[in-house]
């Protein structure tokens, strides 16, 4: 993986630097040409400004007057005034304005034959040698402005080039060109801007290249290229030269096409060595940067991967632990479930297996009781046994019910149950039973107080509570059954005046097979309250011991009230 990434990166870098190389070369060429174009633009502007300025000069009435009114002696003095601001002040040279009019270094007038009119005081108009002055002359006066270049100075080393512009002076009287004004000024020397700072440019004039600071070999190559350019008779030429293994860009352009002065050419040379060195450096920089990036990438990815994998590893360990724990829990659950199932099954089986013998037993006892020759003592004994079978059946029924509840098979079919009716029915039953204690039963259940539940089981809850209240009462005691609706719930309280349940027993009274301290004396099997509470909970309510003191023990069942619609529909008319 690492090798693939490294390989891809290296390939990418190789193409990047190759691309950079070619882009750089193109950029250099473009920069070179753009710089030249900018230079030419500046020159054009300068030339245009100069020509405009000079045209205004040659239209000056005094110059015309001197030429036309035969006052040549006044020509230079007049021009001195007019050209004062264009001439470079020798004592105090001013820098040229690039876009403005440059300062002239000399000027001369040409007469009608194109010969130089000698100035009376050369110091005022720029001193020129005889040879230089002769170069200004033209065979005939030009009709338009002419651009030329003047080589000044004798030796090749000191020689400089002045740009000259010859402007025709047209007589306002004859409309003919009667003279010309030749102005010379230093050629524009603008440091090229942009990336081509090592470009040099010069002038080729009369077989002589004015380009100081050029090595001999380059000069020879440029001369050769120049001759090729001249032979091809092109307007401009751009070429590449290899000199001593170095690449040079060169550019040639004729500067004064159609001029009456000798042709001059601009020669620009741009050695690419520096640029190539820079490019070389750039290549190494790219490679170096790539390598560093790659290294950093490796390290970073390694670190990140490590950081990312840590939680995964932890997760793996955790999940292993979890699985073990879950397995344990599942096993425990399964065993619990099995246990529950087994106990439930046992309970159910036991109930079923018990019910049949009890029925057989009762039938046998009833048959014995039906015999005529039965002694009274025997009859009483058998009656007691018969009664016990009923108790046994009740216990078995309760156990069956509980086991069904434990198995989750008991489903309450919710409907509206009129609690007052249920209470009435049970009180009727209660009155039918023998009442050895002479209990005083009072009810206070509002008519139509309905709960949500199944009548059969709601009735069973009440039955258990009432039986408890009766069983644990004292002689001549009271039972009070009351119902009320409060805070969105229906409460039914069953109170009796039996002895108090000791506080230490109170938490256990709802447990299965738990009985009161004096329970031994009282009939019952200890699952009544547990059953009632389970049923109350199945109804979405609760059964609680509200209070138990010496005088009064009270249980309270909370039910959900009947839903209004069903309550209304099922309420008897």
């Amino acid at each position: 993986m690492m090798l693939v990434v490294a390989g891809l990166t290296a390939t990418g870098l190789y193409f990047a630097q190759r691309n950079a190389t070619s882009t750089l070369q193109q950029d250099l060429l473009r920069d070179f040409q753009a710089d030249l174009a900018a230079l030419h633009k500046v020159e054009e502007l300068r030339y245009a400004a100069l020509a405009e300025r000079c045209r205004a000069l040659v239209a000056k009435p005094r110059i015309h007057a001197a030429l036309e009114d035969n006052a040549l002696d006044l020509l230079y003095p007049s021009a001195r005034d007019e050209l004062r601001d264009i001439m470079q002040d020798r004592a105090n040279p001013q820098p040229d304005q690039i876009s403005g009019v440059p300062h002239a270094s000399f000027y001369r007038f040409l007469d009608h034959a194109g010969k130089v009119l000698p100035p009376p005081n050369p110091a005022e108009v720029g001193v020129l040698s005889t040879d230089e002055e002769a170069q200004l002359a033209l065979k005939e006066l030009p009709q338009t402005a002419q651009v030329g270049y003047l080589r000044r100075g004798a030796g090749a080393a000191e020689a400089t080039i002045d740009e000259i512009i010859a402007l025709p002076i047209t007589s306002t009287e004859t409309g003919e060109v009667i003279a010309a004004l030749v102005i010379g000024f230093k050629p524009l020397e603008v440091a090229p801007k942009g990336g081509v700072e090592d470009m040099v440019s010069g002038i080729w004039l009369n077989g002589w290249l004015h380009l100081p600071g050029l090595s001999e070999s380059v000069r020879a190559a440029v001369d050769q290229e120049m001759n090729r350019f001249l032979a091809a008779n092109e307007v401009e030429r751009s070429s590449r030269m290899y000199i001593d293994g170095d690449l040079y860009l060169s550019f040639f352009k004729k500067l004064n096409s159609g001029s009456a002065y000798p042709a001059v050419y601009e020669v620009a040379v741009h050695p690419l060595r520096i640029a190539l060195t820079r490019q070389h450096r750039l290549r190494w920089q790219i490679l170096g940067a790539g390598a560093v990036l790659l290294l950093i990438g490796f390290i970073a990815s390694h670190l990140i991967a490590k950081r990312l994998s840590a939680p995964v590893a932890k997760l793996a360990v955790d999940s292993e632990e979890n699985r073990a724990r879950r397995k344990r829990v599942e096993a425990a659950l399964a065993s619990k479930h099995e246990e529950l199932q087994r106990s439930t099954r046992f309970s159910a089986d036991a109930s079923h297996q018990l019910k049949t013998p009890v029925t057989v037993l009762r039938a046998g006892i009833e048959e014995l009781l039906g015999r005529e020759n039965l002694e009274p003592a025997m009859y009483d004994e058998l009656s007691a046994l018969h009664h016990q079978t009923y108790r046994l059946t009740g216990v078995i029924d309760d156990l069956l019910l509980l086991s069904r509840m434990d198995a989750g098979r008991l489903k309450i079919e919710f409907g509206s149950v009129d609690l007052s009716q249920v209470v009435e029915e049970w009180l009727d039953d209660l009155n039918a039973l023998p009442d050895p204690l002479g209990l005083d039963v009072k009810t206070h259940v509002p008519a139509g107080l309905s709960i949500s539940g199944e009548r059969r089981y709601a009735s069973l809850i009440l039955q258990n509570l009432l039986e408890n209240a009766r069983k644990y009462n004292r002689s001549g005691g009271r039972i009070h059954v009351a119902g009320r609706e409060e805070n969105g719930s229906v409460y039914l309280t069953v109170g009796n005046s039996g002895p108090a349940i000791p506080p230490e027993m109170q938490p256990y009274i709802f447990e299965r097979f738990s009985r009161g301290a004096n329970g031994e004396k009282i009939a019952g099997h200890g699952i009544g309250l547990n059953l009632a509470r389970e049923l109350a909970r199945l109804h979405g309510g609760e059964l609680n011991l509200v209070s138990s003191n010496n005088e009064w023990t009270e249980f309270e069942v909370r039910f959900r009230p009947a839903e209004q619609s069903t309550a209304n529909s099922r309420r008897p008319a």
Partner: protein
Amino acid sequence: MNVRSLFVFLCVLGAHAPIARAQASVEGRVELPKTTSAPVVAKRYEVVTYGGVLSTSPPLAVVYLEGSFPKPASLPTKQVAQKDLMFVPALLPIQVGTKVEFPNQEKDTYHNIFSYSPAKRFDLGRYRPDEKPVPFQIFDVAGLVTLRCDIHEHMRGLILVLATPHFAVTDDSGHFKLTGLPAGHYTLKAWIDSRTTREHPIDLKSGSTAHVDFP
């Protein structure tokens, strides 16, 4: 003062000045160069050049009697005004020694009248309209003086400085008349443009009017 009134003025001047002498006259017509320009209604004359030759447009000629005449004690001052960027009159013949004023009659334009002519070089410098004293020059050498303005390069004016007091400007059809001339043998000359001056020998007799036509 327009050219016609000047002309009339000059004629009257010529007629009355040498009043004490025996008088002769000469009249005739100068054949003026043909002009293609439309007749000038406003009678404004300007100096034009054609082939390097200065003349007025429409063409006018100056006819003068060449000879040796006694110098007058005083000469009237003449004027060449600048108005609407033109010299008025465009062509002024004067006798040598005449003082000529150059009033600027523009509304708010400066002028700088100068001349590089061999007959008279001068430069009045810049001056405002109604400059006081009015810039002037005295013309001591005979010859043609070209007036220019350094500010308005197209402006041209001509002053023809003559050694004679007897001269007249023709009307635009070329007719002229010189009166009050001394009797004798003279040369009558007609200046037509800066390069063309025609001449004609003439014998003037007292009390008679000679007739000379310049072809």
